[in-house]
């Protein structure tokens, strides 16, 4: 494994202006660029993401925020013709190193998708499948306990405890999304990536998920993509504003929304374009 020295001088200009310095670093990105074939989708991204916080990625559609999110657990590997340069570092490990097992990476960096996509299995198996596969549990009782804990953490337990063996697809959209969150946290990851997790949901389900995110950040580092600025303002500790494949501004959310440093961010936040 290629371990980078943390004392190494940081390349490029640090873009963080972070007041809460006691936060610990989770993911460090330096000079990350990405091409789909010939077209460049990400340009020199530099960002530090802190543990047990919610970081929101905002920006107009097509700005590269989802692409960036997928770099963090190498879901972009699934797309042919993707070419990538730069460094994504987690716990001092280079995520894109040849020796890094993308499967091991995805175990530590879970993901929740835009549209709820439960497996066409029972609610129980949706949650239990991955821990079983990763050999996190060996006895049935442990497994039951893990499933219950994950569903409780996802705020779904009370609603589904009597129908654990019904198919996951029988739930409502909001419940399905919380099931997907339970599925992700059952693997006990460090980081959870959320790709517009509420965009397919109604306002009430959205509120439930937002509350949930707030609770979950005690245990997990959450990085969420959202096209909804109010949501970013409500839930995020840090916000990064993407535009045309670049990070224009990255700051703690309060500062960002109250006093944006750049004109583009201000225009976007005040709704001049989007």
């Amino acid at each position, binding site marked *: 494994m290629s371990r980078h020295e943390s004392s190494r001088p940081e390349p490029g200009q640090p873009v963080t202006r972070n007041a809460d310095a006691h936060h610990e670093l989770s993911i460090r990105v330096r000079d990350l660029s990405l091409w789909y074939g010939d077209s460049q989708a990400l340009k020199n991204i530099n960002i530090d993401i802190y543990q047990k916080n919610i970081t929101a990625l905002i920006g107009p559609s097509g700005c590269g925020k989802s692409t960036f999110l997928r770099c963090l*657990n190498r*879901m972009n590997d*699934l797309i*042919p013709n993707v070419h990538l340069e730069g460094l994504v570092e987690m716990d001092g490990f280079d995520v894109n190193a040849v020796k890094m097992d993308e*499967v*091991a990476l*995805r*175990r530590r960096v*879970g*993901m*929740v*998708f835009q*549209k709820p*996509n*439960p*497996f*066409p299995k029972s609610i129980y198996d949706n949650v239990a*499948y*991955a821990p079983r*596969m*990763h050999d996190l549990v060996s006895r049935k009782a442990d497994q039951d306990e893990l499933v219950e804990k994950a569903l409780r953490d996802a705020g779904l337990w009370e609603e589904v405890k009597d129908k654990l063996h019904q198919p996951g697809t029988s739930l409502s959209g909001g419940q399905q999304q919380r099931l*997907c969150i339970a*599925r*992700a946290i059952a*693997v006990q990851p460090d980081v959870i990536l959320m790709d517009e997790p509420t965009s397919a949901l109604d306002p009430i389900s959205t509120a439930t998920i937002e509350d949930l995110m707030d609770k979950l950040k005690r245990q997990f580092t959450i990085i969420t993509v959202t096209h909804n600025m109010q949501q970013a303002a409500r839930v995020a500790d840090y916000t990064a504003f993407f535009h045309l494949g670049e990070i224009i501004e990255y700051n703690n959310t309060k500062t960002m929304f109250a006093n944006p440093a750049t004109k583009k961010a201000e225009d976007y936040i005040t709704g001049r374009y989007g």
Partner: protein
Amino acid sequence: MSQSFDDISAQLKRRHRKSARLKWISMGALGLAGLFLVLFFADMLVKGLPAFQQAQIQVEIDYNEDASRMGRAALDPEVSRLVSRTFERMIPVQLRNNPDLLGTTETRWVLADSEVDQYLKGNRHKLSESQQATVDRLVAQGDLALKFNTTFFTSGDSKMPEASGILAAAVGTVMTLLVTLAIAFPIGVMTAVYLEEFAPDNRLTQIIEININNLAAIPSILFGLLGLAIFINFFGVPRSTPLIGGMTLALMTLPVIIIATRTALRSVPDSIRHAAFGVGCSRWQVVRDHVLPLAMPGIMTGSIIGLAQAMGETAPLIIVGMVAFIPDVSPSFTEAATVLPAQIFTWAGEPEKAFVEKTAGGILVLLAILIFLNATAVMLRKKFERRW
């Protein structure tokens, strides 16, 4: 100056007639195609249904000394000509195996000669006037009648129409298809999984894809040439056996299974794959635990349809020698056997008129099995159809 509606309508009449004519002609074409289908099935039913009935005759069998040398001696000379010769040949054998029978008599229903059978069914026959009179009398007495033809389902081929049946061919078909399935299903599914889930989009993959499509369009007889030249002459696989037949048919069925499996895999939405990748599955685990189980009904449907196609195939099997006179069920995969379509082909070439009925009867059985298989495939598809 613009025309009134009436003027235009008047001019349009001819054009509307032409349009209507196209509609009626095209409808007629569809009707004609349907009519062919109906005529075909009606013809097969008319020709084949009589095969399921067979004239049987009640005779008194006298197991005497002479009968142990010549079976005919056991029967009343008047009826002995009307009884199937296969039965007469059985009597000395029976006596040899069971000497206690000697001196006893027995009355029972036995197979009648095929000429009697044809006479009763009103077909052309070779019975003399006096034989016809005897037959009429026996029918009136209730000692001669058309009964359900169990022989047809319980015996193999025979040179005598009344004693020939489809059992050997049916068993041969099952054995051959087992070999086909054992080869084509795993290879076909693995190929499709590779192409859909693993293969990079490169030259090799494209060549494989073009190849598979071409394989599906190659005339079946050429697969027979391959089987003959490579499997038999080169690798020394024994001729005429379920093994060689199954191997040859497997190569033909392969593209069907591959194409069906790829369609089934493609119908599994990517969101499922992403979800599985997202919880840390490797590519193989995604396929094994999520994609394949969801695609299985589609794969099964495609395989059943491929098997049904292979089941009706004859030409390549003729080339690898599966058309032979096979009176007994083949005891192993490496001994000579025949299959239903090949049996039909053999019977169709027999000169006796009585075999026409047998041929059509065999066809009805084959068609019934094919319809059953295809109906199963359709039901499977209906039952497991899933909308995403």
